[in-house]
């Protein structure tokens, strides 16, 4: 996993609540057996018209947001299906940070496994950041995970909270399977106990 330390880039405003994972990547595009290539279908139903042409009203079809690396949205971002294809699609498009008042649990979790940082900030702050983002190409935001701040174009710093363990894994790009396998003896002990107390499992 690519580490996430600090990111300075264009932010795209998506002033919608309940952005579900079917919206982020519709199920018909989940047929790939790879982790990459989903970016072209990110937000497909909003981004393209029925004939396949671009919908000029959608933010990611507008300059400078075609190169957005940060997305700002409203409440309950990533609700719905558990598809990890949602953060894969964001990442493949080039978005490595989503800022919203809150996130659905599974999506939130999936982001951290892929080097995408979800940042929770109050709605008023998200609205303010959307205003910043609407100023266009020169209005870049910085998201600094090391210092846990979002830096507005005017230099103002907005602190955010993040789970310390997840921050550590993200800053260092660590694969948590490797970490867990260090606990293999404890897993062995648990299984031995389980075989004695619940012999019907896996029988």
């Amino acid at each position, binding site marked *: 996993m690519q580490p996430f330390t600090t990111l300075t880039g264009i932010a795209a405003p998506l002033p919608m609540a309940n952005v*579900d994972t*079917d919206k982020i990547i519709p199920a018909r595009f989940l047929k790939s057996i790879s982790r990459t290539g989903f970016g072209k279908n990110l937000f497909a139903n909003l981004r393209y018209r029925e004939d396949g042409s671009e919908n000029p009203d959608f933010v990611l079809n507008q300059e400078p947001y075609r190169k957005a690396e940060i997305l700002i949205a409203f409440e309950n971002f990533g609700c719905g*299906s*558990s598809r990890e294809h949602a953060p894969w699609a964001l990442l493949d498009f080039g978005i490595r940070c989503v800022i919203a008042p809150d996130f659905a649990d599974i999506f939130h979790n*999936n982001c951290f496994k892929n080097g995408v940082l979800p940042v929770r900030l109050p709605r008023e702050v998200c609205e303010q950041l959307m205003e910043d983002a609407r100023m266009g190409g020169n209005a870049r935001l910085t998201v600094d995970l090391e210092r846990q701040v979002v830096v507005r174009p005017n230099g103002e710093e907005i602190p955010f909270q993040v789970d310390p363990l997840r921050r550590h894994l993200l800053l260092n790009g660590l694969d948590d*399977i490797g970490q867990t*396998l260090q606990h293999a003896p404890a897993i062995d002990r648990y299984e031995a106990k389980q075989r004695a107390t619940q012999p019907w499992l896996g029988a």
Partner: protein
Amino acid sequence: MSERKPRTLFDKIWDAHVVETLPDGTALLYIDLHLTHEVTTPQAFEGLRAAGRKVRRPDLTLAVVDHNIATDESRRTGITDPESRLQVETLEKNVQEFGVPYIPLLDDRQGIVHVIGPELGRSLPGMTIVCGDSHTSTHGALGALAFGIGTSEVEHVLATQTLLQKPAKNMQVLVEGNLAFGCSAKDIVLAIIGKIGTAGGTGHVIEYAGDAIRALDMAGRMTVCNMSIEAGARAGMVAPDETTFDYVKTRPFAPKGEAFERALAWWRTLPTDPGAHFDKAVKLEAHAIAPQVTWGTSPEDVLPITGVVPNPEDAADEARRAQLRRMVEYMGLTPGQRLQDLKVDVVFIGSCTNSRIEDIRAAAAIAKGRKVAEGVRAMVVPGSGLVKKQAEQEGLDRILREAGFEWREAGCSMCLGMNPDKLKPGQRCASTSNRNFEGRQGPGGRTHLLSPAMAAAAAIAGRLADVRDYQPKEAV
């Protein structure tokens, strides 16, 4: 373990599965059953292969195909869509290479992963169950801790049979009293989501309790737990009781004889202790719930069937007004329009929410002796090959076919717009599935969520209809 502090059902299952607690409070949680399907596993198996890792416990893993497959006769001659075929073939190759038990497409036991787990007795009370699918919450109906995970976590479970998890908060949803005439489990869960909202359960595990929940059969409990994720909760649970034990007892993979008695003794200790702490609690009166139908593009936008389309301009703030305007436009509605006047093009009875034998019986009871309205495509998709077989033994397929319903093969079908069963742009569908998101059943499709009986009534009426006006003509 502090045994004296009163614990919830969730606390007890959690405590029993903690392998180790890390310094920051994250637990390494043991997983008793890992269900897998073709869509969310290829990248996980690929990850194992790349790292030279094995599946730690193939015996605690089960694979099936459900999302990508056709639900008509064409499945017998092979999958036509090349990408879908590759995904299914990839699963078949992976289960062989890694030694994972697999139920093939043409096996009678094939079906939707959340239908077959309980049906086969692989899902049991007290277990931790995960699957790369958010509707894994379904299995919580058995008194298990069951939740959906992403593909990276699928790989983690395959490799280690554990997950790194922070404990969730406890939420109780009490549904007291008796359900009113014409209402079912689906109406209960839609009413709950309408009350607490789609983020009402975020960060929590919901335990459903109260007489109305106790009175539900296992299928009904599965319907309620299934849609916990639509309320933002990763898991929903119902404490195991005699209804649960009777259901489990005869299942092929359930423990037998002395092992069953031993398991039962443990399962009986699982219900929440009196005085256990819930971080959040909500109460509903069952008798006040009328047959529900969603009108918008989020499951929380739900109303009694007697309702009218809301006026976006009545909303409190501009953000909500904008959201409602978009919904009204997308759904092709007019504020003030009666929901019962909305004509439907398609009726879909199926999905992991409502495709069990009880759901098909409920639909057939309404359909018997009636005809699907002209111009309506109505389909019934059993949740598994075994459900299909049983329905056919009971003659339900004949009743439904005679009424003009399509009787199909098991799979996820039109719930998610991934396989050949999809809505066309602009089509309005009365659906027993779980999500009414924009484009969920196909780009431009318009979904109204409701119960199987309400869906059958809509098929007969050719519009959204009040099932209380369409009671059975004769007993099925």
